[in-house]
């Protein structure tokens, strides 16, 4: 496959995120049971799965918005459930999160949104913060005129990019993206995919990406993890996942849409 990524360099490195025996549940409804997952430094991991298999729940559990019933989550070798409040705060600075609808603060301009984490953690001069905000904006591929606009005045694609710029503002080493291309037109989605890949390469970011988008899997992800039955069914480069013997995986990767995305060749 021409877009097959090179994962050899990260194969042996210690995982940056390691999930062991994760169990999450809402009341009696168990979402994950005994889930194991490793994310290697510098890779882009795509997480797919049918609706209701708990992709977003997994993401929320890893970033600590949801407390797991059982299991351990280690990020950078630190067990997340054992951290004190101050340690957890420091650890969170290492991650950027892009929520599905951007979750920009509506009462602040785009530039002020990007500066919120800077203001919260540092005492920089306004001049430096403005410079940083504009740099992040141009990294996220947004016109600089958008800096003084409010989120309500932006289109969906621009909002996504602005939110990406905010998630990059503390120079995270791990980026969590929740359905980054949902709601974007195919051209915008392709551009966003390219952006994520370029940023990940140039900044050395590890990306954890939840998606439905087959094109994203093909063009961006180094490895693909398939969620199902409360576990990770398979986690491997795309070309190996496609051949995995499971009805959902087969239907997903061999369906008409997969044909369109060029995953399988006739």
């Amino acid at each position: 496959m021409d877009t097959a990524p090179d994962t050899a360099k990260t194969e042996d490195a210690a995982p940056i995120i390691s999930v062991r025996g994760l169990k999450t549940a809402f009341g009696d409804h168990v979402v994950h049971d005994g889930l194991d997952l490793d994310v290697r430094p510098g890779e882009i991991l795509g997480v797919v799965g049918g609706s209701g298999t708990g992709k977003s729940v997994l993401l929320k559990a890893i970033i600590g918005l949801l407390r797991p019933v059982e299991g351990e989550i280690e990020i950078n070798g630190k067990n997340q459930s054992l951290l004190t409040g101050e340690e957890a705060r420091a650890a969170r600075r290492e991650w950027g999160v892009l929520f599905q609808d951007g979750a920009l603060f509506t009462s602040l301009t785009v530039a002020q949104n990007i500066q919120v984490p800077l203001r919260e953690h540092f005492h920089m001069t306004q001049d430096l913060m403005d410079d940083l905000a504009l740099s992040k904006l141009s990294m996220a591929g947004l016109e600089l005129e958008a800096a003084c606009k409010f989120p309500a005045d932006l289109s969906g694609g621009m909002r996504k990019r602005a939110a990406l710029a905010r998630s990059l503002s503390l120079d995270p080493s791990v980026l969590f993206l929740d359905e980054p291309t949902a709601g974007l037109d195919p051209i915008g989605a392709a551009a966003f995919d390219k952006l994520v890949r370029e940023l990940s390469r140039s900044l050395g970011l590890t990306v954890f990406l939840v998606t439905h988008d087959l094109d994203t899997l093909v063009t961006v992800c180094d490895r693909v993890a398939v969620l199902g039955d409360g576990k990770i069914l398979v986690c491997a480069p795309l070309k190996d996942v496609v051949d995995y013997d499971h009805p959902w995986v087969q239907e997903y990767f061999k369906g008409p849409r997969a044909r369109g995305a060029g995953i399988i060749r006739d």
Partner: protein
Amino acid sequence: MPEILFESAHIAVERGAPAAMVRLVGDWTIDHAVAIDCDMAATVAACEEGAVLDCSEIGALDTTGAVLIRRYAEEIEKAGHAVLTGVQGAHKTLLEVISSAPPEVSTEPEHMTWYLVPLMQAGAATMDSISSLGRLLSFLGLVLIRLIGSLLNPGRLRLIPILHQMDVVGLRAMGIVGLISFLIGAVMVNQGAIQLAKFGADIFVIDMLGIAHLRELGILLTAIIIAGRSGSAFTAQIGSMKLHEEVDAMMTLGMNPIDVLVLPRLIALVICLPLLTFYADLIGIIGGALMAWVQLDITPANFFVYFRDVISIDHYWVGIIKAPFFAAVIATCGCYQGLQVEGSADALGSRTTKSVVQAIFLVIALDALFSVFFTAIDL
């Protein structure tokens, strides 16, 4: 050993020919950004005629650090030339990403001169209130047309939502309306008796309570409580539906938002507010009677015999006739502001505030008009 002109944890400036040598050392990351930024003025002052920035001794580098290096280079460029040397392979891509300085762009919304701001605000507020009153009237007209259409064709009325709204705005408001009416009735007798006792006329406190409470206070208090309680709820409910495009969805499904959202609330409030006013009148009088018993030793039996003699039924009607009008004003303001919500959660908040302020203002203004009217017809 070259002469050192300036040195800190991240910078060392050495004299050199032809230009100074600026050695960047240590970690240039966001954690050290504040300190590095502080050193900039001293560094720039130390290298008078440009400098060579040596990046070979940098430890960790992130985008913030790259931005800082670019800022240093820019500042030094102002005096002479700035050249980057010894860039490590791992840092190359990062510095390329940040290589070009973004053009000057304001990161805040545009500001006006300070003395123009209040003038502009006053002007905008005046224009806004005039035009919003006009829009409110045209909205009222629209609602009335739909209402009359619905009354001629009762099948269009939605009975279940009306009953649900009556439960929410009427039945569940009885607690707070009753409590406040009781307290106001009692306080009025308490205060009035003290003042009237100076003239030996404390028995007239019953006249005062009857007239003031039945004609004005009962209805006015109830209307204001309902404006705060239900008017704001109308705006918030309809407004959040508007934000989630539910109102647009309704229209595409062939449902008229006025019929579905506004009329049930309006009809429910027009039915409930007179009932609540009657209830508030009753409770207020009971509160007054109890206070009269405690303070003036007038037994409830005597109180009501006297009350029946001096208070004619007209006072009650004057109060209660205003209720449906006030109800229409509150429901119209609440629903209108709800449908005006656009854009963000901020708009929802400011529209809710507006709806309550507008409703209370209009209720009081209308009450003044009624008062003039009833005086004119000798009621």
